[in-house]
């Protein structure tokens, strides 16, 4: 009989947006092999987008991801605007940056809470999500919605940010800047979190390049990829953005926490820079939606839209051929690239570390559903909760040391 045991994890959990199934091969507590399986929730969004007009698709693409609800439509509209050579008013580009950066803050705060939960600190989960409410309020304040913003239109944005609203936005950025030191205390200087994340789930720079990793996952491994810096879009060419990386990147879970926590401060800076630089002016190239729809039917060509979402590069390819609907549309989310890094990170680690490693790429999957333990030919069902308990127990163990 083989000494190793295969443990399938996932794929379905009611709280997850992107169910993924893992098969983890363990030898005792040590993971010796890992594989992933995606596609449990393929909704055919691209297929639908190729059968309806692009304005409808903007709102459909908001629903690709509940967290990156701005980055996906942003890529889509950028591609359409390039095809039709639509000139976007500068103020609209700044408003897009502000919304995208608010999205980054709320996504990173959400992730920090999930990471704390995976390690076993539920009080920190509640604390970070409480802090996150401030940015959710601001998002609602300027877009009217908490999740799917309905902010974008081809050629600009649908809502202006008036000068009256500036003080409240500044107050929020100030709030996060003041809290940043405390957040860093909790996540970067706490000995237990450090013990649970340092040298755990390492992805080397070489492998990050080979596996086309993007976003904080790549940056933590020492690959300085950041679309905002490398290939600036919307108003980013005018803004000062530098990819955030650890000083000596190892590519472990700690480095991925480091990058995300520091990016919260960076986003606050960018938003303030936008408020300072934004000039008054129009926010939409074409106000009349009926005319815009008619214009869209004359669009011909292909283009790509790229954006740096909280999780990394989002990439959309659109091709139009003078029809109502695009001929082709490919939307690629950052997790699409980053899932391929999981086996590299997980193999060689303890089973109890799997939840935090899986969560460390900030997938839309952050906890596991159930585990079927196949031991001596018998199947044993273990719940996701029990796997989570393993992780919590490990935290308690390292705290006692």
């Amino acid at each position, binding site marked *: 009989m083989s000494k190793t045991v295969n443990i399938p994890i996932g794929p379905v959990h009611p709280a997850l947006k992107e169910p993924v199934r893992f098969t983890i091969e363990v030898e005792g507590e040590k993971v010796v092999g890992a594989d992933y399986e*995606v*596609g449990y929730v*393929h909704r*055919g969004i*691209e*297929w639908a987008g*190729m059968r309806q007009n692009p304005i409808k698709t903007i709102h459909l693409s908001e629903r690709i991801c509940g967290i990156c609800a701005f980055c996906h439509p942003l890529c889509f509209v950028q591609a359409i605007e*390039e095809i039709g050579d639509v*000139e976007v008013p*500068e103020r609209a*580009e700044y408003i897009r940056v502000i919304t995208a950066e608010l999205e980054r803050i709320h996504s990173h705060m959400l992730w920090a809470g999930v990471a704390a939960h995976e390690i076993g600190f539920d009080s920190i989960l509640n604390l970070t999500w409480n802090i996150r409410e401030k940015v959710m309020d601001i998002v609602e304040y300027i877009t009217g919605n908490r999740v799917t913003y309905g902010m974008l239109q081809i050629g600009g944005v649908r809502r202006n940010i008036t000068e009256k609203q500036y003080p409240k936005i500044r107050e929020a950025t100030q709030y996060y800047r003041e809290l940043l030191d405390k957040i860093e205390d909790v996540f970067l200087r706490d000995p237990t979190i450090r013990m649970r994340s340092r040298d755990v789930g390492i992805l080397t720079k070489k492998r990050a*390049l*080979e*596996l*086309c*990793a*993007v976003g904080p996952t790549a940056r933590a491994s020492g*690959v*300085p*990829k*950041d*679309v905002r*810096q*490398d*290939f*600036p*879009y*919307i*108003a980013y*060419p*005018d803004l000062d*953005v*530098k*990819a955030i990386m650890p000083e000596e990147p190892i590519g472990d879970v700690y480095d991925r926490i480091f990058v995300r926590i520091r990016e919260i401060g960076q986003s606050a800076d960018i938003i303030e820079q936008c408020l300072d630089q934004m000039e008054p002016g129009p926010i939409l190239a074409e106000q009349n939606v009926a005319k815009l729809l008619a214009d869209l039917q004359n669009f011909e060509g*292909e*283009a*790509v839209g*790229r954006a740096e979402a909280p999780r990394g*590069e989002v*990439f959309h*390819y659109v*091709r139009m051929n003078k029809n109502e609907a695009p*001929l*082709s549309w*490919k939307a*690629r989310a950052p997790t*699409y*690239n980053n*899932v*391929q890094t999981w086996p590299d990170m997980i193999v060689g680690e303890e089973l109890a570390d799997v939840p935090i490693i899986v969560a460390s790429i900030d997938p839309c999957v952050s906890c596991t559903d159930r585990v079927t333990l196949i031991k001596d030919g018998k199947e044993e069902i273990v719940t996701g909760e029990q796997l989570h308990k393993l992780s919590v127990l490990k935290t308690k163990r390292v705290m006692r040391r």
Partner: protein
Amino acid sequence: MGEIGGKEVRIEEIENVIKEKVGKGVITSEIRKRKVVGKERKSLWMRIKKESLKDVIKVLFDFQYPHLSVISGSDLGDKVELLYHFTLGYGEPQKEQLITFAVQLDKKDLTIPTITDLIPGALLTEREKQEFFGIKVIGIPDSRRAFLADDLKNAHPWIRDDKETARIAKDVHAKEVKK
């Protein structure tokens, strides 16, 4: 492998090097321009021959380890076009170059060599193209299905006139109505 490391590599230079080394494989080449808040941004689009795909990608390695964003595709009627979207020059502010190689495959011969030997990260996107366009990627190390449900085993949704997809799309709603 070369590193760009602070030195700006112009898109025209990348185009010239590709033409010099694999000139025969390039069908058309175009540098497209787009202004973003008043600043010009360029991207390189090349239509290339299927047999030259790997040679062209190898040229990119002379500059830096290329980042493969994704492989996208279009159904053009009697042909399927695959587009390999790469970037070079990342890590330096405003110096990243976007390079797209397009390869057309005849619907009678939907095969393409894998590029996972050059870039292992291309695996998932190649698996996806196999499912969605019914393409056979030759030499792919893992050809399991990736995204589609089992009842779409014979369907290739991104082929415009795919009968199986049309049947399933119709059936899905028909079943809901019956219930």
